């Protein structure tokens, strides 16, 4: 018996078996990886661990004692804390206040500030977290907020800490600090459950690993010594993936998108670039280099202050997304949750929201065509869902991304497809599917612009890479010139700070 035991956990949602009969154990003082594709059941398992959801069958036990949580609060009180991708902090309160929330040291309702700062300071120090606890949380970077979130778990004397994709929005320097903290917690005998898509991190951090596939236990490794990465990938997808990029050379055609001296409030230096039919152009740079800002200008999401956008020789004069869509330019935003999906509405409505205008008559919907469009793209893009009527919020990140792609592909006559971070938070199997789709679309004559913070990704799938740095395009390389060093050098500001490279 291990310290933390999952025993025969089963959970069914309407139409989907999210977990079936999953059992494994984790020892004290271990960092345990949890991997699997989107929809494999990782999130569900974490939700059950955190008391957010109830298992249909099976139980979780800690030190042999069966845990029955009726709520996340129960899990909290039993020392089980889950740190989600979306952090749960109050932006307007200071770090110290956030860490004392619910347990303010007070007399007669008046907070004993000095005691609060002492308590929090001592805990932060012992955990080796170096953050000014008087600062308001809203002034912290995402990496620092994550630290505060972990500090909260430490304050509560957590026995089990689960981290869900903790590095998805961290720079590599911030990630290193996080890893150091995790190592320290391991030394203190905590159990860490580490959910991630990133093989590098899992192999670097984890002592043991569980792989889920389609809600079932695909593999459980007590040690990672003799395990290879290819093996884990194969366990996740259920087949061998030899080359995840699967790059196929294409012939570029005429210029589709031409950008001349484009500028806006958030991008002062005028930008020039072009993309040809059948070409995949990559934009690489550090976070804040201006890539997303440039793409938002091209799509009309932000107003432009100058410059010209030409598609197939015709200028776009409209400066709103609607005008860009009509001209055949579409954008899949980097922040899917805020800018992409429409929560509370079905997959069907999320797909049809833009392209339905081609099928309506006097503003009245054509039900048959909406259903057909939704079904077509669910099938074509392999969206995993029990039904087109499913609320999009219930889908995994990869499937949400596919729905957004479906929204744009259902537009007739897309000429330029811009995808900002196409595979952020998406697992290996779905990644390959999305790359394959991009190749097909390019072959059909679209010009594709891919913005990515992952260097291997842009190098793997693009025909040409433009590097941005400090709001301007600093380098342009064709596929035969691709070299990691050259690209990174162009992405770094003059003061060379290699550790600031986004992972």
């Amino acid at each position: 018996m291990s310290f933390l035991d999952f025993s025969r956990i089963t959970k069914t949602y309407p139409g989907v078996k999210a977990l079936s009969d999953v059992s494994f154990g984790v020892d004290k003082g271990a960092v345990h990886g949890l991997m699997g594709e989107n929809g494999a059941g990782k999130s569900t398992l974490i939700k059950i661990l955190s008391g957010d959801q109830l298992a249909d069958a099976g139980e979780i036990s800690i030190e042999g004692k069966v845990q029955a949580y009726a709520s996340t609060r129960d899990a909290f009180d039993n020392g089980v804390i889950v740190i989600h991708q979306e952090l749960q902090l109050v932006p307007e309160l200071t770090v110290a206040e956030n860490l004392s929330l619910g347990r303010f040291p007070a007399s007669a309702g008046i907070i004993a500030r000095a005691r609060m700062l002492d308590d929090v300071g001592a805990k932060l120090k012992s955990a080796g977290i170096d953050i000014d606890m008087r600062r308001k949380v809203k002034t912290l970077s995402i990496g620092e907020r994550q630290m505060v979130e972990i500090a909260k778990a430490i304050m509560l004397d957590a026995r089990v800490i689960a981290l869900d994709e903790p590095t998805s929005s961290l720079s590599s320097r911030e990630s290193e600090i996080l890893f150091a903290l995790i190592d320290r917690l391991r030394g203190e005998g905590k159990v860490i459950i580490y959910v991630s898509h990133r093989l590098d991190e899992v192999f670097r951090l984890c002592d043991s690993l569980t792989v889920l596939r389609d809600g079932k236990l695909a593999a459980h490794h007590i040690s990672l010594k003799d395990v290879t990465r290819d093996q884990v990938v194969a366990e996740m997808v259920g087949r061998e993936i030899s080359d995840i990029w699967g790059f196929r050379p294409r012939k570029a055609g005429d210029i589709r998108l031409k950008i001349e001296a484009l500028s806006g409030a958030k991008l002062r230096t005028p930008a020039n670039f072009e993309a040809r039919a059948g070409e995949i152009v990559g934009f690489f740079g550090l976070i804040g280099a201006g890539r997303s800002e440039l793409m938002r200008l091209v799509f009309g999401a932000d107003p432009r202050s100058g410059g010209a956008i030409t598609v197939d020789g015709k200028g776009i004069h409209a400066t709103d997304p609607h005008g860009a869509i009509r001209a055949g330019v579409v954008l899949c935003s980097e922040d899917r949750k805020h800018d992409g999906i429409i929560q509370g509405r079905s997959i069907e409505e999320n797909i049809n929201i833009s392209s339905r205008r081609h099928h309506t008559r006097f503003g009245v919907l054509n039900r048959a065509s909406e259903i057909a469009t939704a079904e077509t793209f669910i099938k074509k893009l392999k969206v995993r869902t029990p039904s087109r009527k499913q609320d999009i919020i219930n889908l995994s990140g990869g499937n949400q991304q596919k729905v957004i792609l479906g929204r744009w592909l259902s537009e007739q006559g897309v000429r330029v497809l811009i995808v900002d971070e196409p595979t952020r938070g998406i697992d290996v199997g779905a990644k390959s599917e999305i790359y394959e789709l991009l190749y097909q679309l390019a072959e059909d004559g679209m010009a594709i612009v891919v913005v990515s913070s992952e260097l291997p990704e842009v190098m793997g799938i693009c025909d040409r890479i433009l590097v941005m740095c400090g709001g301007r395009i600093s380098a342009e390389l064709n596929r035969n010139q691709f070299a990691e060093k050259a690209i990174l050098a162009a992405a770094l500001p003059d003061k060379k700070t290699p550790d600031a490279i986004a992972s």
Partner: protein
Amino acid sequence: MTDRLKKILLGEQGLVVIFVVAFALVSALVPNFLTDRNMLGLLQSVVTVGIVACTMMFCLAARDFDLSVGSIVAFAGMVAVMASNATGSILLGLLAAIACGAFVGFINGVVIAKFRINALITTLATMQIVRGLALIASDGRAVGINSPDFYQLALSKLLGIPTPIWVLAVLFGIFGFVLNRTVFGKNTLAIGGNPEASRLAGVNVDRTRIWIFTLQGVVCGIAGILLASRITSGQPNAAVGLELSVISACVLGGVSLAGGRATMSGVIVGVLIMGIAENAMNLLNIPAFYQYIVRGVILLLAVLLDNLRSSALGRR
């Protein structure tokens, strides 16, 4: 047994089930409730709230809010009466009332969508401005209707059912269709679900919001005309507090204040539940003071039920 009951009450149609049960109970227990005359009276009493609820549903579904409806209803009624008295043409009076309603709604929409002022604040302001206009126009007094034909709007019957009830039914039908089957309706729900994502998906968010408020004004104009006709005069103090009854009815009908969720059937049921409660209390001679309490309790219970339903769907 309790599990099945829970399932029915917390299911999609839970509200309709409760409505049917409440209706049956009231019919059985309250004398004179289930008579033709009382039924028509009940429906007539919910005409104003019901008509305005049609567009309030759109407003709430798009994450907006409109407090000015009561004032617009009173103002439009005044305009209808005064304009038809002045011109001698009822038709002109009606058109003027609807145009005024539309104008106020349009102003609401432009200020909210284009100048990005919070809807609650904007309509709180127009609510007072428009009420002030109604009072100034009539010097604070009721204005009598000159032409008896004007009364006929509320008094006339078709197939034994008064015209206002027909108007209500037709508007329910129209707005139910608009919500579910038109681009406008779907865009409204999408904006409520996620305004920024809707904009980036090519939806003209500003224009949709302006339309919602303009329609709200038009519909308030219609409600104002029917109300004036029923009370046989233009009353500057008519429909005070209407906005709260309308929003209550919508919320009772499952419209989410967070936006993105609304159904016409829910709103109809919400409007009827409010009407039945009031009607039954009147028949039972319960004093008006107590009726406030009952209405408040019903609203709270409805929202609690809705909450239970969402968490039941989420957690099972």
